[in-house]
Structures are given as structure tokens and as C-alpha cells.
């Protein structure tokens, strides 16, 4: 018998006037010891299943149909006491943000003890049991760890602690909601391997929720692709990734760049996934509005889930016509100039970490003697794990930090610690695009005022008409419609905000853009649009860019050259294709190896910590 049997589960947002389905008729079975992946863009409803099981649905949402059977028991109608006894014991969770899931004012030991008490393993000797669990997730010196606080550990370590807690009760079902999204690729690889290892030890079934189709294909037995709350496709992971039946699966796969293989373009899904309200008005297939294969039938009749192969179902009128969807050709290699836009020599930055009145201070070297050149119309990628000094590099280049030593020349002009005139000139020539558009856009300014903000100071005052024209140009350059100018940032989607963010930086036509993780945290279809936008803008405006990212595939797609950073040092640099196809430094090799490629790895026996 299946451990988890989900039958026609429907979760809706109900109000007095309407019922909007967030998840419609979700059906799948999960056998003990198996892993099922839930994949989709944000808003697809992939987190709803975990929330339904935990009864942590957002306000207004409720289960309005179907059944959710855990080992034959109905989880939806179950008495609260019974559910409480299951949760944390038979059903465990691993959250997305490990740091916010741990209480910052309690030690790891106190929290572990609390959890052990909840699952009935508390009492004397809890320390030994906790230490044993921590050891099982390959944490060194587990006993010392018990006395430490969450903020003293890295994100990856916190996630291991949470995994150790989750598996302490030998759960039968584990729900992992994007457990690696907040972590670096190399940490991600270790964490998913660890979950697999623990799962094997205890025979646990796992629901793995992720937006990364490749990661899901690598670690799951079955994968469910969700679109707008409905199952688009459900089948064995390998088949689904290699030979998808549903056009959405295929589009998702083609929308993200690869780290290996021949260069190709990114498939652009038009528009956005319909929201809850829009879904209710759709008559036909929910994907029809964005589907490259859609015809009249698709727009008028909703396809049911149909078996296309044993154990493989797809909700599409044209299942397996997906070969027709091909990626566009790889973007043309842009002509690069030879002019040196930016040249750094021995650029370093250290921070005082532990200042004492007597006995000097200790220094943390965030950036160690970086040498590099960015040439005209060249996109240079900077990759590395968090803490490798990528952001310090960006902040130093832009002038938010003063370098400890070294020289920095912009267009042949020295720009460190110089007078106001040079500063103004530097600000005109070099601009930064911040990572988080939520924080980078003033919520009290309208979009039009944000993009033209740079024109408020410096240079002659523009007339109202000239300003209007500039705003219009910037908006159309970045693919935003004109009426956006009158909106506030809170009324825009994540992708639109990031475009506004770019438009503002481009306002005075800088020669160099510094982009700090600007494509992370976006849905794959939005990310693909953004990457193509940057390539098009380079062609039209001819700027260079230093593109900082932890996503190697994106860097390979976008950048001509790449710098690999580790612990504040540039350990390898060169043409992107050369570095990615023939990495020299072991660190680069390990980074590349950690990127999910959609191929199920051979069973890893031992784990190197």
C-alpha cells in the first residue's frame, strides 16, 4: 500500500463571493522509501501540499475536495491531537530557510532536546542521542556543536542540523520544501546527497519541492510538474526529463541554460503564469495562453490527465508533440572591443574583525590582490560560493567600500579616493544593478521617477518633455510598457522590478554595469527573458558588464569571460567556454561538478564531508 495517497486533492481560496482553486485535483501516490519531486514556477501551488499536510495553509485557503491519506488515515479530517502526534514524528519537514527555522536565542542543544522530548526520546542521555544524530549528518564535533547558537553556523550547517532533527524520529515521510534554494551549489549537492543517504537508512518517503527541474530529475524517482495548480505531467524522473510529454515541461527545461553541451538559445515562455483569479476564467488548458503548440481545442477544452506510457501521465491534447519545441539558436557572439574599460591591479580589501584597545586587531581579508580587466562590450562573469568575496568585489568597484590597497582604473583614469569631479564622472561611467529589487527601488517613487532619477542631479536640467522622452525610451528599452511609468514598485512583478532596476542604472548610458546576482530568485521563464534583455541591450547600447552570480549555467550563457573566486581570491580566469570545458583549478572543477545536470547520479556509497 502506498504510504501517501493523494486523491483529487483540491485546495481553494474561499471568500463569500468566490472559490478560487490554488491546487486542483492533485493525484499521486508515494511508496515508502521513494522520492517524488514537485516542480513548477512560483505560484504553481507546489508548496500547498506540504502546507496542507501540516495544516499551515495561508489564511482563507482550505481543502475543498479530495482526500489525503497517510498510511490509510485521512490527514484532512483527522483529529488535531492525532495529527500533532504524527507531525514531527512520522512526518517531518525540512524548511527552505534554515537560519530562520532555528530559534536564534536558543542553542542547537536546547532546540534538539526540545525536539527529542516532542518525539518521546528526551530524558537522560539526550545529549548522546543528539550527538549521534548530528554525527549521522556528518557534522564534526557534534558535542561542541550542541552548545553553539544558530548564527555561529553556516547556512549549510544549519540545514544539516535541521535534517538531523527531522530524521531523529525515523520519520516515514519527509517533506522538503526547497531545502537547498538558499544554499550554494556545492552545499546543495552535499545536502541532497545527505537527504538521500538518510532516506535510505530509514526507508523514508520524501516529497521534494523545488523549482529546479534538473535537480528534481537527478534525485527523485517520480516527478510531478505543476502548472497553475494543476498537474501538467507526472512520471518517472528520467523519462520526464529526457522525453517530456507535456509542452510546459519541455519549455521549462529549455528556458534554463546548461553548463555543458553545445551553446543554444533559451526558450522564452511568453507572459506569466495566470494568477488565481485568471485561472477561474480560463476555459481550456491552463497552459494554452503560453503554449507554443496550442490550437483551438486547447483554448476551449481542458485536457484531463491521460496515461501516455506506463506510469507516465500528461494533461495535454498533444502529449509527445514536444519535439516540435526547439530552443532558438545560440545568441550571436558579440564583437568585443579591445579598449580597457576597467582594470584592477592588486585590488584588496580587508575588514577589521576584532578590534582591541591593546594588542592590535585581527583582519579578515575579503578580497586578496585581485587583478583583472574588463574590455569594451564584454560581459565578465564572477562565480564562487557565498563568502568568496564576490559582493565585496562589487562594492569595492562601485565605491561603496574603499580598497585597502591596489589600483583601479576606469577608462584609463584612476578612480580610487579622488576628488568630487572624478567621483561624478565615475558615477556616470559605472553603475550597479542591485540584487534585490524589493530593496533597491524606493517604494514611494513611481517607476517613471525611479528610472529617470539619475537626471535629477548632475548635468543640465531637462525640460519636462525631454524627461518624458527619456523615461519612455528607457521603459521601451527594457521591455516595459509605457503605463508602468505611473505605477509604484509594489504594483510590479519580480521580473518587472528587476527591469526597472536595470533601466535606472542605464539612464545615463554608463560604459560598465556591475550586476550583483540580478537573475537569482526569479522564475526560470522570467530569468530567460532578463538574460536575453541584457544581451540585446549590449548590442544596442554597447556597455560592458561584470556579472556576479552563483549560477554557473547563467554565467556560461551570458558571459564572454569568467573569474572564479574562492575565499577572496581569483583562482581561475579565462574565456568562459575554455574554463567550463577544461577547468584547471580544483575549486572550479568541484563547482562545475556540483551543478545539477538532470541525470541521475550513480548511487553514491560513501560521502565526503
Amino acid at each position: 500500500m502506498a504510504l501517501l495517497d493523494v486523491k483529487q486533492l483540491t485546495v481553494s481560496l474561499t471568500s463569500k463571493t468566490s472559490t478560487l482553486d490554488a491546487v486542483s485535483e492533485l493525484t499521486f501516490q508515494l511508496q515508502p522509501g521513494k522520492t517524488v519531486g514537485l516542480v513548477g514556477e512560483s505560484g504553481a501551488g507546489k508548496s500547498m501540499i506540504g502546507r496542507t499536510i501540516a495544516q499551515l495553509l495561508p489564511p482563507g485557503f482550505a481543502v475543498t475536495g479530495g482526500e489525503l491519506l497517510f498510511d490509510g488515515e485521512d490527514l484532512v479530517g483527522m483529529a488535531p491531537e492525532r495529527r500533532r502526534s504524527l507531525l514531527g514524528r512520522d512526518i517531518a519537514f525540512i524548511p527552505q530557510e534554515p537560519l530562520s527555522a532555528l530559534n536564534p536565542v536558543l542553542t542547537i542543544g536546547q532546540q534538539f532536546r526540545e525536539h527529542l522530548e516532542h518525539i518521546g526520546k528526551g530524558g537522560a542521555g539526550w545529549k548522546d542521542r543528539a550527538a549521534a544524530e548530528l554525527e549521522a549528518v556528518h557534522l564534526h564535533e557534534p558535542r561542541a556543536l550542541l552548545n553553539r547558537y544558530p548564527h555561529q553556523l553556516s547556512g549549510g550547517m544549519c540545514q544539516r542540523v535541521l535534517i538531523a532533527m527531522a530524521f531523529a524520529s525515523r520519520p516515514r515521510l519527509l517533506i522538503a520544501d526547497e531545502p537547498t534554494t538558499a544554499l550554494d551549489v556545492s552545499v546543495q549537492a552535499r545536502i541532497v546527497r545527505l537527504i538521500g543517504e538518510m532516506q535510505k537508512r530509514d526507508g523514508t518517503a520524501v516529497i521534494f519541492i523545488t523549482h529546479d527541474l534538473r535537480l528534481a530529475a537527478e534525485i527523485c524517482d517520480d516527478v510531478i510538474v505543476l502548472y497553475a495548480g494543476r498537474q501538467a505531467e507526472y512520471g518517472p524522473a528520467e523519462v520526464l526529463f529526457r522525453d517530456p510529454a507535456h509542452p510546459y515541461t519541455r519549455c521549462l527545461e529549455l528556458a534554463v541554460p546548461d553548463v555543458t553541451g553545445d551553446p543554444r538559445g533559451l526558450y522564452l515562455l511568453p507572459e506569466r503564469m495566470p494568477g488565481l483569479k485568471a485561472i477561474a476564467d480560463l476555459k481550456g488548458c491552463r497552459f494554452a495562453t503560453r503554449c507554443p503548440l496550442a490550437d483551438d481545442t486547447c483554448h476551449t477544452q481542458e485536457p484531463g490527465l491521460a496515461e501516455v506510457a506506463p506510469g507516465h501521465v500528461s494533461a495535454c491534447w498533444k502529449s509527445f508533440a514536444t519535439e516540435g519545441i526547439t530552443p532558438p539558436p545560440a545568441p550571436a557572439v558579440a564583437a568585443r572591443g579591445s579598449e580597457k574599460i576597467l582594470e584592477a591591479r592588486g585590488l584588496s580589501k580587508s575588514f577589521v574583525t576584532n578590534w582591541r584597545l591593546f594588542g592590535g586587531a585581527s583582519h579578515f581579508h575579503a578580497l586578496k590582490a585581485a587583478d583583472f580587466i574588463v574590455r569594451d562590450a564584454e560581459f565578465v562573469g564572477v562565480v564562487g560560493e557565498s563568502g568568496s568575496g564576490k559582493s565585496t568585489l562589487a562594492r569595492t568597484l562601485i565605491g561603496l567600500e574603499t580598497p585597502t590597497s591596489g589600483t583601479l582604473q576606469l577608462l584609463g583614469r584612476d578612480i580610487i579616493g579622488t576628488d568630487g569631479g572624478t567621483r561624478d564622472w565615475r558615477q556616470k561611467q559605472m553603475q550597479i544593478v542591485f540584487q534585490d529589487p524589493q530593496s533597491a527601488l524606493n517604494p514611494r517613487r513611481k517607476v517613471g521617477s525611479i528610472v529617470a532619477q539619475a537626471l535629477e542631479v548632475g548635468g543640465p536640467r531637462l525640460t519636462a518633455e525631454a524627461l518624458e522622452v527619456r523615461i519612455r525610451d528607457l521603459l521601451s528599452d527594457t521591455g516595459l510598457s509605457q503605463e508602468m511609468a505611473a505605477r509604484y514598485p509594489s504594483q510590479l512583478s519580480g521580473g518587472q522590478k528587476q527591469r526597472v532596476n536595470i533601466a535606472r542604472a542605464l539612464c545615463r548610458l554608463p560604459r560598465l554595469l556591475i550586476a550583483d546576482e540580478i537573475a537569482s530568485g526569479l522564475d526560470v521563464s522570467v530569468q530567460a527573458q532578463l538574460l536575453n534583455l541584457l544581451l540585446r541591450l549590449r548590442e544596442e547600447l554597447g556597455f560592458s558588464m561584470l556579472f556576479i552570480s552563483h549560477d554557473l549555467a547563467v554565467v556560461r550563457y551570458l558571459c564572454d569571460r569568467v573569474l572564479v573566486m574562492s575565499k577572496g581570491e581569483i583562482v581561475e580566469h579565462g574565456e568562459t567556454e575554455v574554463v567550463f570545458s577544461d577547468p584547471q583549478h580544483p575549486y572550479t572543477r568541484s563547482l562545475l561538478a556540483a551543478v545539477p545536470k538532470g541525470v541521475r547520479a550513480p548511487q553514491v556509497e560513501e560521502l565526503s564531508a
Partner: protein
Amino acid sequence: MAQRFNWLRSGRVITGLVIVTGLVLCAVFAPLLAPNDPTEQDILAILVPPVWLPGGDWAFPFGTDSLGRCVLSRLIFGSRIALTVAVCGALGAMVLGSILAHIAGYFGGWVDWVIGRVVEIWLSFPPVILSLILMVGLGAGLQNVILAIILVDWTRFCRVLRSDVMVVAQRDYVAAARLLGFSHWRTITREILPATLPLLITLMSLEMGVAVVVEAILSFVGMSVGAEIPAWGQMIADARADIYSAPWVLVLPILAIFVTVFGFNILGDGLRRTLDTRLTQTERA
């Protein structure tokens, strides 16, 4: 536009506004509204009870005090002093406090340290004692009451606003503005101030209530305006002698202070609920 006037929909804001507007009208049109000259003594009509008590006289709707002065007229003229002090005192405290708060929160470092320590030292004096000491030093008089309120209460603004400024100053859009070539002054006024303004308005409204109370205390001890000008605190002080025979003379000015402070506080609370960015942002998310 609908969003901009959201705060008008709050019941608290409406209540507060009605009370405050009523007071402002009283103060502005005092000579027209008052039935008698507030300083004129009618020796024949001492401690006349208000009209709703036996022996009341419509010539003195709220009765008279021990010197035969019309209580209602004195209350109406007293609102002039109360409001002058409330507006000027709160405005001054706000200007001083918020300028220092923006400087401290924006620049941080040693500037923040110095301003922070000054605020701490300032706050360690009990406010009433501090204002009394100041009044002794400055001498009595309306301007000095306002000055004392400013000098005592700027710390409230500074403390609360500084932390808000710090949060906003760390947003990337502030860094972006600097990198677009904005001067410090322009960054503060164009990027930070709009974000802290709702809190500023709210604090200002609450501070007005506080200023009314402080003025009442100072005029109670005779440190405020001269005896020839009616003020609520003074009325309370004068009425103490007849507290048993004519309680209304004491109760009515207390009631006036209560209503005024209540009006400012409920207005402030309503504005906080509707304007505070933190609250509105969570609602939007």
C-alpha cells in the same frame, strides 16, 4: 489617489480630527464665542454654579470662580495658550529631534555615537524636573514654556526616528541614489524623509498632547503666562481652595485638558495605524 487618502477612513483619525478642529475653532474665534470677558471680575457673582445645577445662571453657562470670572470664557481663552504651546512646542521638538535623528541614523559611526549619548544623558533627567529647572533658568513666559518643551522633548523624536532612519538608510535604493550622484542632503530629503514622514506626523500628534499637559503643569505652578492671561493649569491651581464648595471650577479645566490630550492621542494612534509603513507593508504583502 484612493490610497493617498486612506487615513481619512479610520474612525480614530476622524474622532481625533473632530476634537482637534473644534479646539482650533474655539481658540481662533475665542472673542466671538466667549460669553464674557475672561478676566472681568463680578464680585456679586462668586462661585455661581453651572446652569445644570440649582442656582445656575445663563449669564455664566459653566458658572464662575472664586473671583467671579466666567469659567466658560476662561476655558475658551485658555485653549489659545494650550494650542499655541502644543503646536509650537511639538513642531520645534520635531524639527530639532528629527534633524538630529536623520543625521545620526544616516551617517552612523561616531556621529551616531555622540548624538546617542547626548540623548541618553538627556533622558536620564525626569522630564518635569528638567522643564522646571529650565523654567527657573529661563524665567516665566509663554516663549520659555515652548522652549522648555522643545528642549525636553526633542529626545523622543530623536530616539524613535533614528532607528527608523537606520533601517531605511540600509535599503539598496539609498545606496543607489548615492551612486547616481545624489548629495547627502538630497538623499536624506528625497529618499529617506518620505519613508520616515508618516512616523514623524504620528509622533508630532502625540507630542502635541504631551505639550498640553506640560503647559498645564507649568502654569499650575505659575511658571507659564502671567495671571492676567487665562490658562487651564492656572484655573486648576486657582480652584484648589474651593474644591469642596465648588468642584466644577476644578473639574471643568481638567476635563478640557483630558479631551484635548485624548483628541491628539487618538489622532496620533489613528495616523500610526494608517500611515506606518511597517503596518501598511505587511497588509500589502
